[in-house]
């Protein structure tokens, strides 16, 4: 059993858990942060997509020992605070377009969308269909068309 400290949604947390437990289970089973969902556990479905130091990652595939005390982990619960608002512009775009159906994949979709837009904007570009095609998050309800519309709208507001 090891002690692990990192910054979660702006606050420092310390957990006592074995080194090799994947961060998803530290978040969900130890800390009760349930926004990131389990959909595969092997970094394929992307339902657990969250941010580490502002970049998208999948906590199902990262051991807790690989997260350091200065690492900033942001889950969907902490996304609005990154822009100091009630909701992130991408969440607003999601609401505006009524994207969610069952909703299970949507926290991961939104976190992936924000990171993708940041990546594209950092490269001085606007979102293209090719960028959207790179998003791997599964939506078994098939909301892809609304996701594409919402990401474009959210990107304009970011």
């Amino acid at each position, binding site marked *: 059993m090891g002690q692990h400290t990192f910054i979660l949604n702006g606050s420092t947390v310390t957990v006592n*858990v*074995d080194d*090799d*437990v*994947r*961060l*998803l*289970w*530290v978040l*969900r*089973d*130890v800390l009760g942060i*349930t*926004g990131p*969902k*389990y*959909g*595969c*556990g*092997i*970094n*394929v*479905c992307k339902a657990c997509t969250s941010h*580490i130091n502002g*970049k998208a*990652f*999948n*906590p*199902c*595939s990262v*051991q807790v020992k690989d997260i350091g005390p200065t690492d900033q982990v942001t*889950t*969907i619960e902490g996304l609005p605070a990154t822009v100091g608002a009630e*909701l992130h512009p991408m*969440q607003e775009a*999601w609401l505006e377009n*009524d994207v*969610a*159906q*069952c*909703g*299970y*994949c*949507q*926290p991961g979709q*939104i976190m992936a969308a924000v990171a993708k837009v940041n990546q594209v904007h950092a490269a001085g570009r606007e979102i293209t269909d090719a960028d*959207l*095609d*790179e*998003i*791997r*998050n*599964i*939506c078994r*309800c*098939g*909301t*892809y*068309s609304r996701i*594409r519309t919402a990401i474009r709208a959210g990107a304009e507001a970011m």
Partner: protein
Amino acid sequence: MTDLESRPSFARTNLRRRTFVGYLLGGATLAVAADLSLGNPAYAAVPSLPQISELYDLGDLQTDAARPTANLIRIVINTDGTASFELPRMEVGQGITTSTAMIIAEELDLPVDKVHVSLAPARPELMFNQLTGGSNTTVSTYTPIRVAAAIARNALLDAAAIELGSIVALLTSKEGVITGPTGASVSYADLATKAASPTTKAVSVTLAPRSSFSVIGTPQNRVDALAAVTGRKTFTLDLDIPGALPTMVCRPPTLNGSPQSISNRAQVLAMPGVTHVEAVGTGVAVRAATFGQCIDAVRALVVVWNPGSVEGESDATVLAKLRAAEIPLAVPAIPLLAQTIEAEFTFMFRSSAALEPNCAVADVRSDHATVWAGLKAPIVAQGEIAAAIGLPVDKVTVNVVTGGGSFGHKLFNDAALEAAKISQKMGVPVKLMWHRADEPRQGRVHPMATSRIRATVLLGQVLTFEQRHTSVSTDFGHGLGEMISHNLDKLPTGLGNLGFAETIFTLTQELPYDFGVVTQLLNECDMRFNTGSMRNIYSPDVACANELMVDRLAALTGQDPVAFRLAFLKNSRVKDVLRKVASVGQWGRSMPAGMAQGVAVHSEYKGATAVLVEIDCRPATVNRPITNGVTGPRVTKAVIAVDAGLVINPRGLEAQMMGGVSDGIALALTSSLHLRDGHFLEASWDNYFYTREWNAPLDFQCIVMPSTSEQPGGAGEAGVAASVSAVACAYARATGTMPTRFPINHDQLSFTVKPFVPPIPESPTDGLSYTF
């Protein structure tokens, strides 16, 4: 043949301004109720000419099944001015909590966000009026919910008249406030207790006419949208039930195997976090502090397994059995000069798994049990769990949790039943989760099927159209089967002798064309698979086969596919949706070689859909590289038009059509299971290729047709069949070859098969290498 509009008038179309009886319930705050079977009268005699499903379909069967045993649903007005309603159906993403809130808001003159719709737990007194399926929720609950809401509004008006010293006729209600002629007003919050009835009594009410609707028919966002986008929407695995620790099952290497003995139980029990290891019928269950530790324990278990149900079987051996079971095509008496075309189509096994894996929380004690799960047939679950753990039904509480998708999967209680057994054996509460790999390998599948069609044509007329659909047995054991057996004597003449599956087939399949002598027959064989009613049941396969043949018939008679369909379609609603997609989708526009349009129609759920797609089958597109992903042809554009009768929420309907198109693309092109040596090979979303962002249409349009109908139709499944058919037809046109096996890429095994022992893969540790 007759159009829908000119058929004998059905009772349900004569509901305008009808008076209904409901109840004011005795209590401290205003509570009202209505019988859930209201407004859905049984049909009278069935004329012989049209096909059965045109007149009496699966929805009618479900509605009639509910009738003799239906019970009350109730709406409560709370002292904060909101209304509460427990819906005896399950929300899985199809939007029924939103549409139900809209229906109540309409009759109650209350803002939609002041109506709280939750999901009712298992209510055995409702008998089979608590099954979510067949896109039947709004069809069957629309009138009773309106009646209850209208009674509540009348009671509020009566109380307001006293409060305001006026008479009801002079009052207006709007947005939860009742205003009198002097401008004085009183809110529903103030009236909630004043309007309460000291005793329960029957009252009559007249429903608002459609012309007065201000909520129904307007686009509304989902009532749970904010919860979904903030991560606050609670699914079964998010529940915090005291003591219910993560639990998983080490499953057998072949389909439906079972554990014989555990070789290393003590070692696994000693692993970090692990609290319990117990064999159950389906495998060896482990319970631990985290799911990560469950995964490690499942992988560490050494188990001796009994053989499964399909040892040594493969796609080819099952297909051979299906072919042997086909009902022969009859040879109709046709003129010598008639041309005959015939084809056989094969539809491979598909997984109906949702993104949320099978899961349930169970707390089984010696004298009572509580279960939480996503269940579309909770009463059946309650009964089966009670029997399995040896408790009376009334000692088993089954709570229905909103589901992360269903697609037919949650008609079954596999996880709830398994969790209850595990909790009983371990003597502790458990939170059971299936691993993703467990879903395609041991979970419910859409059965493999063949469809043989023979049609004859003479002088531009189709004389005969025969279809023989042969399927691995479809499991309807979730209560629909009970409904049917319960209703056999009430079915129209001639249906009573058909088996369950044949009944469902007959009640859902409707060839919408005037093709002379039409016969569509089903045979099923092979009960050894875990199957179920995947979204739209038989229709995606049957319609795909039909519509490909319709294109061939059009070609044979030298006609344009749209013109040919319009010439032979029986129903004006189907013709209208077809004309709409042809117009919006610019049918017939020129496309480069390797690209083509496809069009298809479908009629079910008291409605009609048409889909037009454009597909790109050019090598540069087909071979576009996506790491670990299947690319293949791309549907670049999809236009879908839907006539779903009276539409409650067009925005929700459009969402369901979008999902139907995504499903149709996957069914036609990419998604299947491969059976080899007694097990399915798939174990990941990168093995089972449901539509991904890189396969999604770049251009999607949905047109919700205006309707004067007073009757809502079904939405959840209505978009699938025409979508898969249109994609198949477009592919045939783009490549010049009619596909006969679905999905089209089934022959390519596009992944490395994961091991079967241990049954689940290790979680990677290199996640930080893939940040973006």
